[in-house]
């Protein structure tokens, strides 16, 4: 039997480790120094049709700017901030990134976004994009992102059912109740309205409360809910289920997917969402006839809607890549880019100039978004609002839906929770 010495063993281990490393290193992807700038771009275009639209934008940008290469990376929304923060702290953040308005304050606070006010002003973008759309990316007067597209709230409705019933899509909250009741045929599993009572439903509740005249916070960022108006809004909204039975009984558990599939399979007649789901609706239900879009109904004081922009910002561009990074994010604000992206994805343009574009004006599906986009602003946000909405508004809204508490009880708890959330 040959002897295996310690020296042999160590030699073998070293050889195995070297072989392992040698085998793996060719897989390493490293950017080599190039004459032409390469711009890293982190984005959240995950859904297949949205990603396809993004590929088209990439291709068009490359044709217009052949010397600039874009290196895109898809980052899941839920892990975005963890990855971005790690990269900024590790001094390896991307050159450019997509940025949601709710995250921009944090991204700026950690030094992850550059002030681009000068470039925005120089390029004349302030004239092309309405002032309200810049708010989400403006901190202490400095601009950190260019609005690329918008999620504009609207309503889908079954045009064929409404036509059959001889009804027009409702424009006010009272008409909405009547239409929801008229469209309901519970025995045959058909309901007037697909209400979001599961995760994500909290955003609808606060919009309803605001539409009924109760602000959430005042200009100073202090709690400002009006008890009576908030109760009226919540009562109207929950009565659609608890009194009129016009929403599916599963409402307290219905989130985005359940609602989309219920609408698409003919179980609900109306659905509130935003322009981001248009491409899916078109794919499943066809271009025209079966469904259409309309403005969300008007509450007693304002429309139950908001328009949320998504931004592109410059993060940590490498040497010689700052100008190329700016070219890339500026490209997203151009009318042609935005309309093309709209046609492919349903993501609505942020530029005011698109209103004059024939491709937008000529499509009746876009009329509701066009009418909404300049009327409403972004949803109410304050430090602590996501937690308050998720942990206080949603569960108590669900308890009202389940008949456990009254709207008065729920609003009282919401107001107490708001005080705590604001005081921090």
């Amino acid at each position, binding site marked *: 039997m040959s002897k*295996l010495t310690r020296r042999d063993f160590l030699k073998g281990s070293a050889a195995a480790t070297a072989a392992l*490393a040698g085998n793996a*290193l060719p897989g*390493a992807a490293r950017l080599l120094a190039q004459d032409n700038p390469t711009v890293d771009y982190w984005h959240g275009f995950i*859904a297949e049709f949205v990603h396809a639209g993004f590929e088209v934008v990439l291709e068009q940008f490359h044709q217009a700017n052949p010397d600039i290469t874009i290196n895109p990376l898809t980052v899941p929304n839920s*892990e975005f901030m963890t990855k971005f923060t790690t990269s900024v702290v*590790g001094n*390896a953040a991307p050159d450019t990134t997509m940025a949601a308005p709710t995250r921009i304050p944090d991204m700026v606070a950690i030094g992850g976004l550059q002030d681009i006010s000068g470039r925005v002003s120089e390029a004349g973008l302030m004239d092309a994009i309405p002032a309200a759309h810049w708010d989400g990316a403006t901190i202490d007067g400095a601009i950190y992102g260019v609005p690329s597209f918008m999620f504009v709230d609207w309503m889908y409705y079954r045009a064929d059912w409404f036509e059959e019933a001889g009804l027009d899509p409702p424009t006010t909250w009272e008409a909405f109740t009547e239409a929801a009741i008229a469209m309901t045929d519970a025995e045959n599993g058909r309901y007037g309205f697909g209400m979001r009572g599961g995760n994500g439903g909290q955003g609808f509740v606060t919009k309803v409360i605001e539409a009924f005249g109760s602000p959430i916070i005042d200009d100073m960022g202090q709690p400002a809910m009006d008890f009576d108006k908030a109760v009226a809004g919540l009562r109207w909204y929950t009565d659609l289920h608890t009194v009129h039975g016009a929403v599916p009984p599963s409402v307290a558990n219905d989130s985005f997917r359940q609602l989309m599939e219920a609408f698409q*399979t003919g179980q609900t007649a109306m659905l509130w969402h935003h322009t981001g789901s248009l491409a899916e609706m078109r794919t499943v239900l066809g271009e025209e006839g079966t469904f259409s879009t309309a403005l969300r109904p008007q509450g007693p004081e304002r429309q139950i809607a908001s328009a949320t922009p998504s931004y592109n910002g410059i993060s940590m561009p490498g040497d010689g890549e700052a100008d190329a990074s700016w070219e890339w994010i500026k490209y997203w604000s151009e009318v042609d880019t935005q309309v093309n992206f709209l046609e492919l994805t349903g993501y609505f343009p942020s530029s005011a100039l698109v209103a004059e574009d024939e491709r937008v004006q000529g499509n009746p599906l876009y009329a509701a978004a066009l009418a909404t986009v300049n009327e409403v602003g972004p949803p109410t946000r304050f430090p602590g609002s996501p937690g308050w909405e998720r942990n206080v508004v949603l569960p108590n809204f669900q308890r009202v839906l389940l008949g456990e508490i009254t709207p008065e009880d729920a609003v009282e708890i919401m107001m107490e929770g708001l005080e705590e959330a604001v005081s921090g």
Partner: protein
Amino acid sequence: MQLSFRGTQRLYRFLTAAVLVFAGIFALFPLVWTGLTSLKQNTDVITAEMQYLPHNPTLENYFELWSRKSFVTLFGNSVVITFMTVSLCLLVGTLAAYAFSRYRFTGRNAALVGFLLIRMFPMVLMLIPLFIIMRNLQLLNTRVGLALAYTTFLLPIATWMLKGFFDAIPPDLEDAARIDGATRAGAIVRVVLPLAAPGVAATAVLTAIAAWNEFLFALMFTTNEASQTWPVGLHLLVGEEFNLPWGLLSAGGMISIAPIIVFFVLAQKSLVRGLMQGAVKG
């Protein structure tokens, strides 16, 4: 009515069987449903009436997944990284576990507890330090980098498991081999490791499962699609909200468990023996 002893025994057996059958169905149903969904066309997936069985079974989802350009890259990266992680954990873990099992040295217990301490922190806390280390070593976007990152949290478990198996092997056997002329390393390779093979297999399987499914580090330490792994790719396929490709996702889910099932079947005998051995004698 009072049951006889045999009747009571039968009743207990029946109840036991019923509970086991229920638990089995409960555990397997999601898997079976995923498998059935992966064989459905998209039009059969979203329907007003629930359809459990596919009307027109098809492998279309599997073919479509395979035809995607990133599929082979993602899958290949995961296979290589899992292999490297398991190799590293077994190589280093075996030597460390043997030392902890056989030698008595100052700080031995502290070192053993130290190994466990690493596991007590949430992985997310290790992200930034690891990221900075990897960036400085130019290991971001590399398979070696990911394998090393996985090893940081899998090696302690591997070492602890292997130590239990080594403790169960009488040192007298090694002493006999050394009297016959074997070196310490020779005794490990020719005597200890063959006897500990079930334990090594069990450790390899558990390490492989953890490395194969790892998501957080794989997402954080990669900044291009060529270096991402299968769990990251599958997560990106899931998307956020819009237009979920259920059939494709189900096919992806079935594919992602396939290598683990194959590995488990191959190592099943050793794994069960190893787990029991560790439990009784560790």
